[in-house]
């Protein structure tokens, strides 16, 4: 059973690394938290009762390990995050002077359809990866780790205004990216 488990865990490693990189944006840190996660999963195998998917359980452990990592070491991102939030880039190029969109947003169709496709999640990861480093970190903290914005501000030592602005920018960029790389393509055949 343990041999099976360590085999299954080893197979999850690349997927875990990918997602840890999206959150941490640092290969060494990502390797570290994924190793810690796999060790914890092996040690805690008794707690995995098999009622959920193995991957779901391991991703849960990964989230905790990443949060631990923030507690220990992520202070150094704060200065960068402030600079990035202060950048003047307001998506004005996407809007006409009256505040209307130049390219109207597409109809994305049935959400369940996208959510049921593995390729959709690959494109999603790609689009998150394309976000500027600090926007990506903040966005992942909010939407993947499900931190409250107050926690994010505290962890990264940024003001709440910066936090809301960064999340807005991340969402708009991600929206554009998904539209050009997934929904636009699905719709046009």
């Amino acid at each position, binding site marked *: 059973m343990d041999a099976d488990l360590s085999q299954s865990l080893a197979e999850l490693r690349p997927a875990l690394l990918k997602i840890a990189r999206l959150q941490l944006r640092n290969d060494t840190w990502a390797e570290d938290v994924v190793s810690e996660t796999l060790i914890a999963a092996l040690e805690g195998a008794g707690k995995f009762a098999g009622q959920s998917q193995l991957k779901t359980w391991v991703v849960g452990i990964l989230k905790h390990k990443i949060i631990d990592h923030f507690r220990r070491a992520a202070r150094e991102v704060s200065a960068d995050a402030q600079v990035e939030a202060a950048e003047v880039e307001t998506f004005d190029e996407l809007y006409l002077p009256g505040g209307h969109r130049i390219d109207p947003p597409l109809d994305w169709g049935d*959400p369940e359809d996208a959510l049921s496709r593995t390729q959709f999640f690959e494109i999603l990861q790609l689009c998150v990866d394309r976000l500027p480093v600090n926007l990506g970190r903040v966005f992942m903290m909010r939407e993947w780790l499900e931190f409250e914005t107050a926690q994010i501000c505290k962890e990264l030592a940024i003001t709440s205004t910066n936090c809301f602005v960064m999340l807005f920018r991340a969402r708009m960029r991600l929206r554009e990216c*998904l539209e050009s790389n997934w929904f636009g393509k699905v719709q046009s055949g």
Partner: protein
Amino acid sequence: MIKRLTRITCRQAHVLLSERMDRPLSPLGRYRLYLHLKACDLCSRVDRQFDLMRRAMRRLGE
């Protein structure tokens, strides 16, 4: 007069849609967004898109 107070652009609506995902809006913000979404199908689309993005992000890696 009232119209001027309550009317927002699509851009402002997108900012409020995003903010609403992170904290409760002020009553005025809520009212402005409500009026805007009632009249603007395209921003209602963005609202649904943000919602889908959130659901997808929570499942990332699973």
